C-alpha cells in the first residue's frame, strides 16, 4: 500500500509535466494537417494532370505550362501588379499624411480616428456593393457631375475594361488607408518626444523634423505596413467579386479570382492548384523573411 501512492503520484507528476505538450499537440496536429498537409496536397495536384477530378499520376510541369499560356492568367498578374502598386502607394501616402496631421495634438482626435478607421470594420463585399453604386455610370458620380453643370462629363471606369481595375483601387484605398494611418500613428507615438524637442531647439522646422528625423526612425513601420498591404493585395478576392465580378469580361481578374474560377466554375483542378501554388510562393517570399526577423526580435 505504502509503495503504490508514490507510484501514482509519480505518474501524475510525469503527466502534469507533459500536460502543456499534451494540450498543444492536437492543435499543432490540426495545423500540420489543415495547413501543411493541404498545401502539400495542392502543390502535388499542380504537378499532376488533374482535371475535373484529382488524378494522382505525376505529370511534371504541364499544368504550369498551361497556366502561363493562359491569357487570362497574364491579365490577372498584370492587374495584380497595377493594383498592388497603386493600392500600396496611395494607402501609404494617405496613411502617413493623416498620421502626421493627427499627431499634432488635435482636439477631437479620437473621433476623427474613429471615422478614418471604420471602413476596416466593413466586409469587402459591403465596400464593393457601395462603391459599385457610387461609381455606376447611370446614376452615380457621372450623373452627379453632370447635374453640377458639366453635361459632357463621362465616368464609366466601372464598365470600361481599360479602367475598371482602377475602380478596385479606389474602393480598396477607401477601405484600407485608415489602417495604414493607424499603423503610422502608433509608430509616431513611439518616437521619443525629447528627440523632437531637441531638434526644435536646434531650429529645425516641422518639415525637416519629419522628413529628416522622424521618417528614418519609422523605417520598420514602413516595412511592416508595406508587407501588410501587399499581403492584403495578393489575397484580394471579395472586393473584385462584389465590385466588378472580375469583369468586364475578365478585365479585372486577379490571381485569387482566377484560382476560384478555375477551381469551382471550370473544374480545372490542376491549373487551379498551379495558380494557388504561385500565390503561395509569392506570399512566402514576402512573409517568411518578415516573420523571421520579427520573431527573432521578440525571442528573449
Amino acid at each position, binding site marked *: 500500500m505504502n509503495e503504490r501512492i508514490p507510484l501514482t503520484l509519480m505518474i501524475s507528476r510525469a503527466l502534469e509535466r507533459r*500536460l*502543456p505538450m499534451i494540450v*498543444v499537440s492536437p*492543435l*499543432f496536429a*490540426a*495545423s500540420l494537417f*489543415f*495547413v*501543411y*498537409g*493541404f*498545401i502539400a496536397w*495542392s*502543390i502535388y495536384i499542380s504537378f499532376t494532370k488533374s482535371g475535373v477530378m484529382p488524378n494522382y499520376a505525376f505529370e511534371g510541369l504541364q499544368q504550369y505550362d498551361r497556366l502561363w499560356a493562359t491569357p487570362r492568367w497574364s491579365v490577372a498578374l498584370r492587374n495584380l501588379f497595377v493594383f498592388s502598386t497603386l493600392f500600396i502607394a496611395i494607402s501609404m501616402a*494617405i496613411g502617413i499624411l493623416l498620421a502626421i496631421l493627427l499627431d499634432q495634438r*488635435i482636439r477631437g482626435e479620437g473621433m476623427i480616428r*474613429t*471615422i*478614418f*478607421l*471604420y*471602413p*476596416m*470594420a*466593413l*466586409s*469587402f*463585399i*459591403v465596400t464593393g*456593393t*457601395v462603391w459599385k*453604386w*457610387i461609381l455606376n455610370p447611370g*446614376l452615380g458620380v457621372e450623373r*452627379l457631375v453632370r*447635374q453640377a453643370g458639366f453635361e459632357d462629363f463621362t465616368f464609366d471606369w466601372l464598365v470600361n475594361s481599360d479602367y475598371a481595375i482602377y475602380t478596385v483601387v479606389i474602393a480598396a484605398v*477607401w477601405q484600407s488607408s485608415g489602417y495604414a494611418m*493607424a*499603423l503610422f500613428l502608433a509608430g509616431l507615438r513611439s518616437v521619443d518626444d525629447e528627440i523632437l524637442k531637441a531638434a526644435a531647439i536646434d531650429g529645425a522646422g516641422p518639415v525637416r523634423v519629419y522628413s529628416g528625423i522622424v521618417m528614418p526612425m519609422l523605417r520598420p513601420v514602413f516595412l511592416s505596413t508595406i508587407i501588410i498591404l501587399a499581403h492584403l493585395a495578393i*489575397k484580394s*478576392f*471579395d472586393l473584385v*467579386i*462584389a465590385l466588378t465580378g472580375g469583369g468586364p469580361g475578365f478585365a479585372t481578374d486577379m490571381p485569387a479570382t482566377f*484560382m*476560384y474560377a478555375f*477551381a*469551382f466554375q471550370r473544374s480545372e*483542378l490542376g491549373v487551379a492548384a498551379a495558380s*494557388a*501554388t504561385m*500565390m*503561395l510562393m509569392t*506570399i512566402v517570399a514576402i*512573409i517568411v523573411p*518578415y*516573420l523571421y526577423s520579427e*520573431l527573432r526580435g521578440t525571442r*528573449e
Partner: protein
Amino acid sequence: MMRLVLFVVLGVFCIYYLIPLVVMIATSLKSLEEIRAGSLLSLPQEVRLDAWGKAWNSACVGVRCNGLQPYVWNSVLMTVPAVLISTMLGALNGYALTKWRFRGADVIFALILFGAFIPFQVVLLPMARTLGQFGLAGTVPGLILVHSVYGLAFTTLFFRNFFIGVSDGILQAAKIDGAGFFRIFFGIVLPMSIPAIVVTVIWQFTQIWNDFLFGVAFTVGDSNPVTVALNNLVNTSTGVKEYNVDMAAAIIAALPTLVVYVVAGAYFVRGLSAGAVKG
C-alpha cells in the same frame, strides 16, 4: 493659420471616409423614383422604410425570395461558435507555448503562425474534399470547423503576444504552491487576460462575420452566410435593379461589425496593430 489648414485637410478626409456611408443610408431610405430623379448625394425627401423591409424578408437571393434574414441567422450560427472555439483554443495554445516553454515550443509557434498568412486559395480544394468526407460539405458546422482551424493561428499569435508581457513571477509562485497547468490557467491566467480576450473576440468576430471566400467556396444556397447572400442579392439580374434594397441589404450585412466597432473601437484598433505581428 497652419492649424486652420490642418483642420481643413482632416475635415476633407472625414468627408471622404463618411460619404459612402451617408450615400448608403440615404439611398436605402429613398423610393426608386426619387433615386432615378434625384441626386446621389441628396438626402431623402421622404423617409421610406420599404427597402429595409424588403431587404430583410422578401428580396430575392438567387431563386429564393425571403430576404437576407435566413442568411443573417446562418452567419450568427457560424460566427458565434467559431469565435468562441478559436479564442478559447488560442488562449490555451498561447499560454502553453509561452508559460510552459517546453522544448520545440518556438518552432511549433512559428509553424502555427505561418498559417495566419497563407493565401487560403492554396487550401480551398483539399478543404472542400475533406469537408465532403466528413459529411460537412455545404453546412454551417463545416464553416465553423474551417473558421476555427484557420482562426487558430491568429488567436494563438494574439495570446502569445499578450502572455509574453505577463511576468512569470506569479506563475512560479503558483507552481511552487503546487497549482497545476489548468488550475493556473483558469484561476490566474484567464482572469488577467480579459483585455486580450476582448481584442481577440472582436478581431475574430469581424474576420469571420465578414468572410466571403470560405462562405462562397464551401456553402450552397440555404447555408450561405450573409456576405455571400448579399453578393447574390445585388447581382440577381432579374427584374428592376432596386438600389435602395441593395443598400439596405448592405447595411444589414455590415451592421453587426459596425456596432462592435463603434462600441469597442479601441480594442478593434489593438487587434489591427496586433496583425502587424509584434503589436
